[in-house]
């Protein structure tokens, strides 16, 4: 590797190493602004037969070289870092990865609705699978709680509880149980421990657990009853997961020293960029980012004060198994506007779990995957509601990301996936991360915030639409309101909105317009007073979408009517 002193970073190479595909992005300054110059993708190779990420990384970077004509690799195959005066190489190199096997976690706390709740939130935010919870008022006897933890065979125990300088005896009692579990288990399968409770006990418990296993401590996640501070503990938790990833994913430790900052977990980086955006937009609404991947999906919410990340073991690669176990297959097949049996849908998706790299080659397979994506989003939104994870029901904007959503060719279909899956309320601008670079930008923003900002404003992101959800109890087909969209040049567009329909008012991406809605009967738009005041809206490739299909969207039971209705909706928005 060349070792010249770097000047100001211009060229940046980013890699997202996913469980199914490895994607590479080359960024550089063009006309005084960072732009994405090229992207490439190759099947990930951390699995059988190579068990090392190196081959996929090499292929991705080689393709970037071919596309751009720039030399990024030495003849020996090493990355040229930093960039040379002749333009070879790159100045910065970032890696994010979601190749993280989900850790089985036991959450332990004192009060179920205080410290345990916060410990669970930590688990939900990371690449984990919460398998058991114990708390002080849990009525099971000590030995049953112990047996439950042993039966769960956790990889990690999160112990929280006690405000700082607060309860310590109860925390010690729970710690005794954990120490007992650690003592019983053979060395090879003892879980690690993350302690994030009363700080007065930190060093004592670190020593007690440290006799058996590796321990990390973090600042108290509930320093007082009213206060919740998750970020430092989440950072420790992610560090523990990353250590495991570095051990288990061949080649990642090898490229780590080349990275400008250590490789980051994709969900952690995604959370960072949503937090960053949350500070830029309307704090009353907050930003919601959703990402559907092969193994994991995630949802991050942020405004100027709070940020929440939730990671789900749902996806369309190996995550499809969890999706199918949690879904009735009809919840997926009902979105298909062609003749196919539920058994065929189920078989296709189960085969997809066996072959996560497989590609939808026909129009029908593509539609089937979009139907499954809708269900992933639906399950995510339902779970977020159960977890009471979202402080608002309106978002501005909703960002759609992930390797799978970015594979949807037609933006109208991407919009339908989001609207049908998430069923947002109120007025929601929807933005598509068409290359799936949001997590990478989150990692890059640590060292190069200018790149992140300029890319977020670039054509790497597509304004899909501003979607307005209109609800009413009127009969299907009844006229709900008249809409008039005024353009900056003085022209206007008028339409009538009927119950059960969806329509688009043309407004090019980035252009603002004034929307006037004149209800003809009682209608509601969540968190919006329909007092006939005009609404300033921003256009997208699908314009301004008035969605009067109701919440929740109810599809006809009759397959023929259902197919006709879906086709009609697609036609109305101009789907390909």
């Amino acid at each position, binding site marked *: 590797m060349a070792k010249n002193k770097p000047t100001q970073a211009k060229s940046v190479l980013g890699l997202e190493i996913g469980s199914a595909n490895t994607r590479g992005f080359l960024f550089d300054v063009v006309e005084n602004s960072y732009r994405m110059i090229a992207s490439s993708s*190759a*099947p990930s*190779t*951390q*699995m*059988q*037969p*190579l*068990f090392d990420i190196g*081959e996929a990384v090499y*292929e991705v970077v080689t393709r970037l070289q071919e596309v751009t004509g720039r030399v990024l690799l030495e003849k020996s195959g090493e990355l040229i870092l930093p960039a040379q005066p002749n333009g070879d190489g790159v100045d910065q190199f970032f890696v994010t990865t979601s190749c993280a*096997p989900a850790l089985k976690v036991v959450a332990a706390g004192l009060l179920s609705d205080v410290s345990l709740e916060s410990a669970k939130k930590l688990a939900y935010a990371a690449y984990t699978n919460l398998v058991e919870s114990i708390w002080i008022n849990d009525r099971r*006897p*000590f*030995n049953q709680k*112990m*047996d439950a933890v*042993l*039966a769960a*065979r956790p990889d990690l125990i999160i112990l929280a509880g006690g405000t700082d300088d607060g309860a310590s005896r109860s925390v010690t009692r729970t710690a*005794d149980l954990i120490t*007992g579990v650690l*003592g*019983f*288990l*053979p*060395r*090879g*399968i003892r879980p690690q421990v993350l302690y994030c409770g009363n700080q007065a006990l930190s060093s004592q418990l670190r020593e007690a657990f440290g006799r058996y296993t590796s321990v990390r401590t973090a600042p108290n996640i509930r320093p007082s009853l009213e206060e919740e501070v998750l970020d430092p503990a989440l950072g420790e938790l992610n560090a523990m997961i990353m250590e495991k990833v570095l051990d*288990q994913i061949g080649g990642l430790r090898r490229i780590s020293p080349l990275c400008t900052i250590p490789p980051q977990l994709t969900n952690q980086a995604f959370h960072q960029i949503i937090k960053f955006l949350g500070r830029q937009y309307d704090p009353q609404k907050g930003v919601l980012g959703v990402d559907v991947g092969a193994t994991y999906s995630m949802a991050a919410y942020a405004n100027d004060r709070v940020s929440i990340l939730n990671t789900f073991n749902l996806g369309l690669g190996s995550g499809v198994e969890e999706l*199918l176990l949690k879904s009735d297959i009809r919840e997926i097949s009902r979105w298909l506007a062609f003749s196919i049996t539920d*058994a*065929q849908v*189920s*078989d*296709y*998706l*189960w*085969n*997809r779990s*066996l*072959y*996560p*790299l*497989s*590609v*939808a*080659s*026909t*129009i029908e*397979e*593509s539609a089937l995957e979009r139907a499954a994506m809708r269900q992933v989003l639906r399950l995510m939104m339902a779970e977020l509601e159960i977890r009471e994870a979202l402080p608002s029901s309106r978002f501005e904007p909703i960002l759609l990301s992930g390797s799978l959503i970015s*594979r949807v*060719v*037609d933006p109208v279909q991407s919009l339908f996936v989001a609207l049908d899956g998430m069923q947002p309320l109120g007025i929601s601008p929807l933005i598509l991360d068409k290359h799936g670079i949001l997590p990478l930008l989150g990692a890059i923003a640590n060292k190069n915030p200018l790149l992140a900002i300029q890319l977020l404003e670039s054509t790497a992101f597509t304004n899909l639409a501003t979607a307005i959800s209109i609800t009413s109890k009127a009969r299907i087909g009844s006229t709900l309101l008249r809409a008039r969209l005024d353009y900056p040049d003085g022209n206007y567009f008028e339409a009538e909105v009927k119950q059960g329909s969806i329509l688009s008012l043309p407004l090019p991406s980035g252009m603002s317009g004034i929307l006037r809605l004149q209800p003809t009967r009682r209608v509601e738009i969540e968190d919006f007073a329909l007092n006939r005041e005009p609404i300033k809206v921003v256009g997208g490739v699908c314009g301004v979408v008035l969605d009067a299909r109701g919440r929740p969207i109810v599809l006809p039971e009759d397959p023929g009517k259902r197919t006709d209705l879906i086709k009609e909706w697609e036609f109305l928005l101009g789907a*390909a």
Partner: protein
Amino acid sequence: MYAQLTHINPLTLIHRNRLLPVPGSVNVREGQKVNPADIVAEASIPARHYLVDVARTLATSTPAAAEKMITRKPGEMLQKNDIIAETGGLFSRVIRTPGEGRMISVNKGRILIEAESTKISLQAGLAGKVSQVIPDRGATIQCYGALIQGVWGNARLGCGPLAADSESLSGELKSSKLGVTARGTVLAGGTCSKEFLAAAASEEIGGLILGSISSSHISAALEQPYAIIVLCGFGDFGMDELSRKLLSTHIGHDVSINAVKWNRLTGDRPEVYIPLAEEANACEDQVVYSSGQTVRLHTGSYAGRVGRIESLLPGFTLLPSGLRAAAARVVFGENSREIIPLANLDVILASD
């Protein structure tokens, strides 16, 4: 680009590690011949406990006082109703064990007893010779024979003589194939019904090899006490012609099934082994896609079909779905040709 591989190999050298998840004892030695059902290693994992609160039950003033009344020591084996603590004196009050187990510890006047542990017995899984002992963890078993890799298994091991015929291999296994003669045998067929799965259990078959199975039968398959391996995938398309041909040449031979769940990160994969007397070299496990390779499709309407790569298409090909992907022109039979994304192909390796 490295290919996804599946071995349907008539003769090869097979090495398989059989390892405990936790340290335990290894029961075999290097060079020892083993049968599929032989236990090569064992370990135990704690599972259920009793906690006896002596201080509370005997109402002692302090935990330390309670501990003085405990009559047994950590590590001792206890039978049900053994006395573990007593106050002493003329009217002594006693505490007896709630069940049998091993005394683990005494802490703050409380006794912890391990009531039972889960025993892990690791079977050899295939007939062969122990080529290496891995201390405290298990062994590597080696054999020569036919190897057929599958895609799904119900997490069980099975073995027995192979019972199949051309009718069942190319179609659905019918209940008529079951009966007294099926007991202990490994049955093979294109596919089967849920009812067949249950009926096969009552006949105590040794295992089941299927080309494909409906995904609606997954939960039923997981409940069966015998090993089930699926070779091609989910659906009703049956068994590919290469697996069919290979299995049909070994009817009556002893076969073993390792119906482990496919884990691409560790490389564990469900497999069928048919030990043979002839020797051979180990097969390749890394190949790149190239013309002339035999391939099997695993996705969509062509799932389970076997063809040959006629040519690799340059760059990325626009698919009917609108996606672009690396693809190949695949020939099926004499004249039928299709453009298939490489990601939807398995290269089939056979050494003959």
